[in-house]
């Protein structure tokens, strides 16, 4: 009971703090200088229509590399933590039924196609590597839901993941050698603004991020799905 009262007290204190923050808040009428710089220079300098993509892939590209690394570490730790709980006795879940199986065969390619569309068009439309990767992993998830005992191809997933990661770093180094700095997208011609093959290396980098994120989530799903029933 005392714990609950303490929690309530903490929440009330935080609530007071938030309320004072809220009451003083007024939305800016103008963009701040950083955002203004991005808004005015992205189109000419990088050729990307989606400013969020430009920030993630190029302006803050190094952070994104770090973040993909964090994600990789998370997937690796999940695999490591669950490694001793591998299932020994096969278990028999209720099968998914014929209609779900047929629906999965129909929809999985469509989901993967949508994922590829999302990360290839990351510099033109909302979307990009992280979203596309999550959609790819959702396609894998649908297969898993329809047939939970289907064995996972760990080899393919880890090959895709390490290949995408290595190429990502190599493209970054190429930017250092051929253009302005690490992960500079201008190693490829900028192309015509608004076309699919434009914005230099952004579509390539984002596709690699998409494949890597998708492979990482899929390997998380795989290591969870192979655990033992408790």
């Amino acid at each position, binding site marked *: 009971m005392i714990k609950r009262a303490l929690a309530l007290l903490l929440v009330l204190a935080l609530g007071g703090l938030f309320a004072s923050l809220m009451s003083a808040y007024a939305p800016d009428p103008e963009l701040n200088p950083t955002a203004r710089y991005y808004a005015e220079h992205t189109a000419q300098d990088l050729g990307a229509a989606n400013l969020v993509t430009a920030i993630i892939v190029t302006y803050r590209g190094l952070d994104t590399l770090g973040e993909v690394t964090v994600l990789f570490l998370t997937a690796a730790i999940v695999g490591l933590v669950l490694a001793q709980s591998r299932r020994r006795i096969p278990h028999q879940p209720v099968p*998914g039924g014929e*209609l*779900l199986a047929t*629906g999965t065969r*129909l*929809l999985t390619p469509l989901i993967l196609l949508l994922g590829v569309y999302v990360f290839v068009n990351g510099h033109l439309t909302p979307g990009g590597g992280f979203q596309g990767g999550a959609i790819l992993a959702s396609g894998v998830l649908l297969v898993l839901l329809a047939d939970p005992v289907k064995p996972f191809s760990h080899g393919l997933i880890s090959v895709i993941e390490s290949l995408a990661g290595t190429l990502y770093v190599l493209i970054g180094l190429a930017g250092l050698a051929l253009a302005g700095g690490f992960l500079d997208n201008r190693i490829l011609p900028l192309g015509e603004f608004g076309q699919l093959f434009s914005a230099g290396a952004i579509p390539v980098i984002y596709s690699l991020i998409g494949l890597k994120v998708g492979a990482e989530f899929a390997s998380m799903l795989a290591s969870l799905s192979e655990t033992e029933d408790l």
Partner: protein
Amino acid sequence: MDLLGALLLVAGAAFLFLGGLGLVRMPDVFNRIQAGTKATTLGTLLTLAGFACLRPDWAVKLLLIGLFILFTNPISSQVLARSAHRAGAEKSPLTGVDRLAEQEGRPS
């Protein structure tokens, strides 16, 4: 054209409303799934058609969204109905027969 689109929108929203009403009023899970699936599918398709009339340049994407809904929605409600039946969801006392439970040798 705009007026037609707006009318389609209202018709679609009315079906969505009916679906919600059915969800509240129907007596058991299966009847609620019926109301939920049918009314929302037609309602969403009609609203998408309405938006396609209002903005003809969006028609292709709206058609794709409609197609996806047309495939995913019945599948998910079928899986849900099956799982509700398997998990032994309570049926309304009005229910006449239950051949599936008879087939599986469970009391209906």
